[in-house]
């Protein structure tokens, strides 16, 4: 595992151990160095003391060239086991005596070296002048001491240093293991809390706060964040619940409305079926008695007309006219009903062509009349062609009818923009109407002219409006008495 991925506990422990180890190492090194230096000083001081004592003792033997005496003096060095070799040179630089006595000659330098104490070849070498106080030099003393004691001291202090270091490191490790918890514990607790939050999605847990330091601040901030998340989550949940409730309410409402609509549709269907049955029955049954009334009046006129006076015959004619008029009324009403219940089949309808056809038809049925038709070409609309034909027949035959007394009748079909909408218009220069009664124009059985003036049932324009309304359009009229009428409609 790379160092940066170590758990924080191990990192802290390692850091503490590294620091204390390093410090200990430096301290130990200083300690050992000091020990060795001190020992070295002491050793060389001891050797120089020894050198001076022996040199002082050796003056007589050198002065009198007493070799045995010199050897005797040197042999006292046996008390100092670390002195491995010693030599006494005379003033001329010749070796006079040696220690120990069996020392090979080449173990000592051939002549006296310069005075002083120094290390050389792993030994401490001391060279001391031999002289009476205040007189000339008699010779030179050479001492060679091994460094076993120094090495021993070095080993001892190194061992002590190593021991101290080991104990210190162990203590440091134990302390580090204990103390790192102070820092790592809150972090680990935070990490554990964060893990619990992310795995269980439980925002109600809180990280325990251990201290008031930066970690405490971090823990507080983390807990606060959790609190806020928990609050928002709670709010969200509440919103969701509210929303669900509202959806449920709305659904319920919609279901109720749907139910009402279904009921309405069923009622409408039933009403339509009733109307259908009613119209069918009217179509069959209502005309039969009229046929009898008209028929037998005619029979009476044919068979017994001669026996009746003029008034009697007139009455019979009136009966016949009334029954025929009622038949027309019934037919018109049935057409209106049919327009209402007919199924719409929408397609593009050539309105101009349709208007031309109807105009031609009107001219053909009344060849005696002449009227000018001005039909704009190329007008089309989407709608049910059969229903639109009924509407056009009504509108154009109205114009045809109401221009009958006009010397130069003119009937126009075109289109125009009214308040930004595209509207069609049928215009004539006929009898027109008083705008006071404009709202009555499209009502069933509403007539603005007497039957004597112009024939009619008052159902035609009601039928037209029904057709336009079924197409989602609007119809309105403009006119003045004896100045013609204009019918506008949208589809």
């Amino acid at each position: 595992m790379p160092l940066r991925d170590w758990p924080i506990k191990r990192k802290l422990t390692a850091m503490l151990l590294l620091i204390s180890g390093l410090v200990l190492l430096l301290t130990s090194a200083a300690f050992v160095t000091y020990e060795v230096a001190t020992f070295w000083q002491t050793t060389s001081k001891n050797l120089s003391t020894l050198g001076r004592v022996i040199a002082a003792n050796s003056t007589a033997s050198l002065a009198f060239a007493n070799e045995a005496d010199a050897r005797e003096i040197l042999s006292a060095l046996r008390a100092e086991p670390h002195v491995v070799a010693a030599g006494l040179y005379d003033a001329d630089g010749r070796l006079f005596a040696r220690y120990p006595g069996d020392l090979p000659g080449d173990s000592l330098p051939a002549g006296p070296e310069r005075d002083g104490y120094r290390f050389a070849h792993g030994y401490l070498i001391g060279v001391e002048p031999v002289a009476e106080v205040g007189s000339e030099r008699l010779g030179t003393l050479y001492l060679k001491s091994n460094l076993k004691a120094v090495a021993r001291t070095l080993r001892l202090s190194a061992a002590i240093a190593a021991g101290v270091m080991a104990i210190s490191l162990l203590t440091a490790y134990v302390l580090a293991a204990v103390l790192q918890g102070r820092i790592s514990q809150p972090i680990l607790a935070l990490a554990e809390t964060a893990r619990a939050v992310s795995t269980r999605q439980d925002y109600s847990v809180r990280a325990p706060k251990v201290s008031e330091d930066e970690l405490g601040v971090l823990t507080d901030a983390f807990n606060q964040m959790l609190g806020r998340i928990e609050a928002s989550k709670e709010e969200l949940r509440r919103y969701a619940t509210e929303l669900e409730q509202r959806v449920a309410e709305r659904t319920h409402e919609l279901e109720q409305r749907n139910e009402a609509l279904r009921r309405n549709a069923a009622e409408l269907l039933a009403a339509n079926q009733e109307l259908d049955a009613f119209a069918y029955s009217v179509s069959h049954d209502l005309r039969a008695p009229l046929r009898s009334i008209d028929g037998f009046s005619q029979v009476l006129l044919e068979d017994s007309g001669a026996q009746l006076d003029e008034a009697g015959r007139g009455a019979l004619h009136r009966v016949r006219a009334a029954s025929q008029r009622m038949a027309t009324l019934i037919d018109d009403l049935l057409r209106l009903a049919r327009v209402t219940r007919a199924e719409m089949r929408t397609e593009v309808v050539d309105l101009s062509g349709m208007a031309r056809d109807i105009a031609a038809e009107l001219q053909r049925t009344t060849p005696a009349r002449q009227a000018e038709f001005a039909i704009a070409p190329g007008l089309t609309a989407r709608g049910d062609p059969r229903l639109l034909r009924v509407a056009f027949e009504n509108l154009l035959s109205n114009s045809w009818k109401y221009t009958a007394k006009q010397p130069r009748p003119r009937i126009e079909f075109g289109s125009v923009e009214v308040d930004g909408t595209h509207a069609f218009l049928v215009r004539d220069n006929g009898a027109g109407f008083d705008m006071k009664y404009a709202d009555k124009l499209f009502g069933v059985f509403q007539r603005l002219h007497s039957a004597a003036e112009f024939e009619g049932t008052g159902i035609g324009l009601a039928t037209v409006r029904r057709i336009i309304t079924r197409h989602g359009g609007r119809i309105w009229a403009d006119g003045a008495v004896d100045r013609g009428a204009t019918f506008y409609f949208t589809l």
Partner: protein
Amino acid sequence: MNAGKILLVEDNPDDVALTTRALKSHNIMNDVVVAHDGVQAIEYLFGTEGRPASDELPAVVLLDLKLPKLNGMEVLQRIRADGRTRLLPVVILTSSDEERDIIEGYTLGANSYVRKPVNFVEFTEAAKQLGLYWLLMNQAPPQPRR
């Protein structure tokens, strides 16, 4: 003139009287047999248990639609279903001009559909045209062999 009979299927006595009069007034002297409902019409054409059907079929059937017991459409269906009467000229003569009646009538095989006008003068004219056409102009299908 075709000597065949006319079968008038009509429940309204006024209409029977007026239709008969209208036919007669134009010298259509053919016998008019009247069936007052659908069942009578079927019995006349196909016979009953006691009385077999007449050998000769009528030249034309003038058929009203709204009839008691068996309505006009059902009568027409029975006529077209039987091999002997399958080709029999049938003219629907009724009050209604409801589109569905016209469509159903022709679908079931009516030869013509005439709406009775309220105006008796027009009605008489229609009867005359019918008589002239179906009894004089029209080449009737051959009488079926028994």
